[in-house]
């Protein structure tokens, strides 16, 4: 009997201790509704813009919200209209369960007369949805006079962990343009100097040979060089084979094209690596796919134009393309495979570019970087970093801007916005700093990066916000 009692007691104790509560889940939070941006601006060419409103979490039921406005020198039906149509100074936007936002369109009906202020201020006045509130950007200022955007949120389409795109971002225009980074091989400078740039985003490298006849070079001649003419060989002297990472146009790997064509040597060209195609573990990138092989090239001057000769290493014939120097843009771009010029950023005004990048590690030579941000040095865009410990992003204003700190080096933002990872850790967003940037029109912005990855930790989904200081 005594046995039994003790047994029961012990079993009860065991049972009691075994009861394992599962991890308790925190409560669902409220849904916040806001304009995607707090301001936007119509340039003289724009006549229609789509305005997005976003939710902090997907709607859990069907609902609606009501937007109204008050305007400065702008009359509904004369200066602008909205779709869906408004009645009595307001309109309703409906959404369904699962939606992460809604949008409406603004049509600009006429350009303002220069010197007059025309704008409309939209407000979210009501949300009909369980647990919803208006927060963040509760109002949107729309300017019709083409002023630089006062703020913005941009998610450049870098394209995921292979980072296939170079994304050109214009802060004042609040827009970004993505271009596949394998679209071009060589960039021909359109400014005063005759300079040719490699596509460093593919980790290309090049070495001058002692020969002026492109047909005379064979793969045997360059075999000993090939191991060295590459990015990431951990030989400090390999910096000679890549363009100066600072973006200084006079320090390209290919020497300035000489007036006397007899001085223009053949170059061995390592085409780098194609854009990776495999999907790596979340947190990692797979930038480089197969090696793209080797070419021999020679660049000549023909008056004010360039002539590019290129061929496979052992070819006895070569292809030729003439690149004219119009001077309208910074560069003309050539794709070797199609032997043609291609459109990249020629008609885009941009301040910063998201790209993979050939940088230098001091003492170790060239090294391929992901998630790199380049400021447009050739358009005089400069930037610098500010530590949060000195002053918080929110408190930073025009009085705090220090003109001497602006750096033209195109790596002023570079990879400084993230923490580098290692074999056992993934890079992360560096939250302790933000950046100040001055564009070619002397607009000064503060920029804060808010994401390096998507919410699953997959690389190549950056986000940032910015605000105009002047």
């Amino acid at each position, binding site marked *: 009997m005594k046995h039994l009692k003790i047994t029961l007691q012990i079993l009860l104790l065991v049972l009691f201790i075994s009861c394992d509560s599962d991890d308790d889940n925190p409560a669902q939070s409220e849904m916040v509704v806001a304009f995607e941006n707090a301001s936007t601006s119509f340039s003289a060419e724009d006549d229609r813009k789509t305005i997005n409103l976003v939710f902090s979490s997907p709607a859990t039921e069907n609902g609606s919200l009501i937007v109204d406005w008050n305007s400065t020198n702008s009359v509904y039906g004369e200066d602008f209209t909205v779709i869906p149509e408004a009645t009595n100074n307001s309109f309703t936007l409906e959404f369904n369960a699962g939606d992460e936002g809604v949008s409406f369109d603004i049509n600009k009906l006429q350009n303002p007369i220069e010197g007059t202020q025309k704008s409309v201020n939209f407000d979210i006045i009501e949300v009909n949805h369980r647990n919803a509130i208006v927060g963040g950007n509760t109002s949107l200022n729309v300017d019709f006079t083409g002023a630089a955007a006062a703020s913005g949120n941009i998610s450049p389409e870098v394209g995921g962990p292979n980072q296939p795109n170079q994304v050109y971002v214009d802060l004042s225009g609040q827009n970004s343009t993505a271009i596949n980074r394998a679209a071009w091989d060589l960039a021909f400078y359109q400014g005063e100097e005759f300079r040719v740039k490699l596509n460093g985003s593919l980790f290309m490298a090049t070495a001058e040979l002692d020969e002026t006849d492109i047909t005379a070079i064979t793969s045997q001649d360059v075999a000993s060089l090939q191991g060295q003419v590459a990015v990431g060989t951990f030989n400090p002297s390999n910096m000679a084979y890549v363009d100066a990472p600072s973006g200084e146009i006079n320090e390209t790997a290919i020497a300035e094209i000489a007036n006397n064509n007899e001085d223009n040597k053949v170059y061995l060209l390592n085409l780098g690596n194609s854009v990776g195609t495999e999907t790596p573990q979340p947190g990692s990138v797979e930038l480089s796919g197969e090696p793209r092989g080797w070419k021999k090239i020679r660049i000549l001057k023909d008056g004010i134009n360039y002539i590019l000769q290129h061929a496979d290493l052992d070819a006895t014939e070569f292809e030729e393309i003439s690149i004219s120097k119009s001077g309208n843009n910074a560069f003309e771009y050539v794709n070797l495979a199609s032997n043609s010029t291609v459109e990249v950023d020629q008609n885009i005004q941009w301040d910063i570019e998201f790209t993979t990048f050939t940088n230098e590690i001091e003492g170790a030579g060239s090294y391929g970087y992901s998630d790199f941000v380049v400021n447009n040095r050739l358009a005089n865009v400069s930037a610098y970093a500010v530590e949060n410990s000195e002053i918080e992003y929110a408190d930073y204003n025009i009085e705090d801007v220090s003109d001497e700190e602006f750096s033209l080096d195109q790596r002023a933002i570079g990879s400084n916005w993230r923490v*580098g990872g290692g074999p056992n850790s993934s890079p992360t967003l560096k939250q302790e700093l933000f950046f100040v940037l001055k564009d070619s029109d002397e607009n000064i912005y503060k920029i804060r990066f808010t994401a390096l990855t998507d919410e699953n930790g997959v690389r190549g989904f950056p986000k940032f916000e910015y605000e105009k200081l002047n």
Partner: protein
Amino acid sequence: MKRLRLILAFIGVLNISAQEKDSLDFKFGEINGLEEVVVTGQINPQSVNKSVFEVKVINRETIDRLAANNLADILNQQLNINIIPNASTGKSGVQLFGLDSQYFKILVDNIPLISDEGLGNNADLTQINLDDIERIEIVEGSMGVQYGANAVSGIINIITKKDAQSEWQITPYVQEETIGDEYNFEDEGRHIQSVKVAHNINDNWFAQISATRNDFKGRFGEKQGQNYQQNDGLRGYEWLPKLQNNYKALVRFKSKNTTAFYKLEWFDERVKRYSESVRLNENSSTGTINPTASDDIFKSGRMFHHFNLNTKLFEKTNLNISTSFQEQKRDVEEFTYRIKTGEKLNIRKNEFESRQAIFSRGNLSNLLNFEKFDLQVGYELNLIDGFASPMSNPLQSDPVDRKLNNYDVFATSKYQFSDKFSIRPGVRALFSNQFDPLMAVSLSSKYLFNDGVEARAVVGSSPRTPSYDELFTYFVDVNHDVRGNENLKPEQGFSTFIHFKKTFWSDDYKLKIKPKLSFWYLNVSDRIELTIVNPSPLAYQFSNIDKFQSIGTSMTTSLEYKNISGNIGLSLTGVSKVLDSQDNFNDDFLYGLQANSNISYRIPKWGLTSSVFFKYNGPQYQFVQQQNEADETVLTRGKQDGFGLMDASFRKRLIKNKLDLTFGIRNVLDVDRVNTTAVEGGAHDAAPSSLLLAYGRSYFIKLLYQFKF
């Protein structure tokens, strides 16, 4: 005489020394019949002092006194052995003579136990439950002839219990532990429940089943757990939560000339790893955050079957065959955790790594009918099927599936020249489908001097087979070139040990002192290391390039006086590494000191035993490459600080010895982190300045009841 026997019986049964329990001296052993028998490395089960090998024994009493639930709980009090816990994986490895767990083999009932990454080696000590263990035998030194590859620094042989005194024996117990200063019933502390049922069916048959649940809730320390929303490195746990279940069953048959058993074990484990890095996922528009983190749940399962037959042929010859099938598999569930809502997104379930093995060993002993000569011949077969996903190695790009088949034959003999002198030569040939044939040899001898000094000299060798990382790493991109090498050959380990010991008794036989002095030399040649195979472009590959040597000496003394028994040990180990894999290295011997002691006092009248265990691990040194002020790479002597581990316990038997109550303190000195400059930083990571070795002072209480009828 009767009184003497009684005292000796007590000493024999309740020998306290954790370090090493030697049986009574030869002639008294005869008297009371309580000699401790060991099996490790023996042709036939032998008493410890007849063994030509120097076998250290941890007995059940010591295990109980430390309330040790798994192997990691007990080995950290052993001289020369260091337990290396890894807080970020939850695993604990073993280090012996400066060599890690790849060189150390763990056996259960004489056969190697499977782990995630090997058969016998690379074991996670926390996964080896001790509930049905009778004793643990430890042999230091290379044991390739007896146990094949990967027994370089030594072996542990866990001997399970295969009998019970009464017809029915039901043993439930509960054990509650704090983890450092953290404890509650919900999400802190360590909670163990177990029940074992043993039954003697008749004179021939015995059966036993047991189940144990070990719920280690992890340690928060400074960390803030799973639902912490800030990205300041404080999310998650300092020690990962881990839940283990262990089920075992045994059927044993015993007759005059034959014993046979079948043992089945099922083990499963769930380890949760919470990322400390939090992605805030700021929404600048709404001014909200939606923090997420990438978490993992690891699920391991181990299945273990072992059939053993031990029978006499032709009256004298002994046949012993063990056949085993074992499998261990580790699966990972990776997911994104939305901290605010507790949702799991993007769930990916994959096999992380696994090993599957068919093992068989058989031997015939006492083959030749001579009194002074024993011969044992045998075979060992192991077919290991391994899988490693790229997740298991950040520098591996493709999954690896590989079969390693070993077919070994061995012979050992023992020649007894006289009562005083015996030798034991042995040889094993190792054939495999992956490597060229290898040879392991051993030669042991024992000499008993006239003054009672026992001298043993043991020479042995054992190869270590290359790991999957060494074979299959492949990390080549625009910036890197790091490769494994499928043409690696096994490393070669070789060791020599010399031991002297003698037992002293006081005139009234109340005091017994048994000092032992040991010297050893161990070397590993063809050591595999990552090395630069091309400086420009920089390329690394694993190669058989380095050399490792360890020398050492130890002095241990056990002491017994009335109800007090104790043990004190001191050892000095020097390690030298010839690193041809690096540009510059220093192969000076670097010495480390270890000391351990334990003392226990029994009050038989009260059924009370109190014990204190202490081990001091002296500073450890290692040459590390560092950048000096002029930015040059220089070799400096890094140091890991010394630390002491102390455990204390009280054990009391109540209700006619049926209720067993143990209360104790682990890590009395409250050690957790130890400062170090002995770890090198990598290209992307700075060197850590401290190592997490323990989780601070903890308290435990264990309540065990035995029903016998």
